[in-house]
């Protein structure tokens, strides 16, 4: 597609439930990032995928968070047993070939945990 897309755009869930957030990167982009933007905060790095390499999970805040990227394209971020502090906007970004430094962001998924 023309840009990074994410779904759903909004998600309201109850504490303790699991949620899945989806990201479709720009076609042909090999690198994919997940960030979290909490109210009034900057962006916090969560996880990074590059091609077929093992993902860099160093930013995941707890073992309730996981992500996968199937076929080197679409990625799913899963949050298990959601907590109220997980409420945030989850942003996905993709980046092109090596040497291209710019990350292009999707519109985000706004998650609210009640």
């Amino acid at each position, binding site marked *: 597609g023309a840009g990074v897309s994410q779904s759903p755009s909004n998600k309201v869930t109850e504490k303790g439930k699991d949620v899945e957030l989806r990201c479709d990167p720009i076609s042909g982009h090999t690198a994919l990032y997940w960030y979290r933007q909490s109210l009034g905060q900057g962006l916090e*790095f969560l996880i990074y995928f590059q091609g077929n390499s093992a993902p*860099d999970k160093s930013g995941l805040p707890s073992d309730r968070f996981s992500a996968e990227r199937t076929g080197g394209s679409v990625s799913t971020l899963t949050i298990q047993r959601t907590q109220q502090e997980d409420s945030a906007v989850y942003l996905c*970004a993709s980046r092109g070939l090596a040497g291209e*430094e710019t990350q292009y962001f999707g519109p985000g998924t706004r998650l609210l945990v009640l």
Partner: protein
Amino acid sequence: AQSVAQPEDQVNVAEGNPLTVKCTYSVSGNPYLFWYVQYPNRGLQFLLKYITGDNLVKGSYGFEAEFNKSQTSFHLKKPSALVSDSALYFCAVRDAGFSSGSARQLTFGSGTQLTVLP
């Protein structure tokens, strides 16, 4: 470690006046620097970047930024502000030196809310 500071949470400017949004950074090596803009309920839109070369970088919508290595700054500027420029602006940095397989993730500042008054 890499970090970014945006010292102003809020900047107000009258339409037609020049605007500046400040950013300072810290990296161990050479920096790659970026500015993004976020409109309400939207994702981040790329404005401009400094990788190497000319210290004055021109970007989208008439914005520009000047890389100042001695002051470790990368302030965003526009000669004449528009009401439509009102948005949240983020500065981001990455250390240019990286090892194969490293994430090359960006570190973002906390954002500056720009309001352009008619």
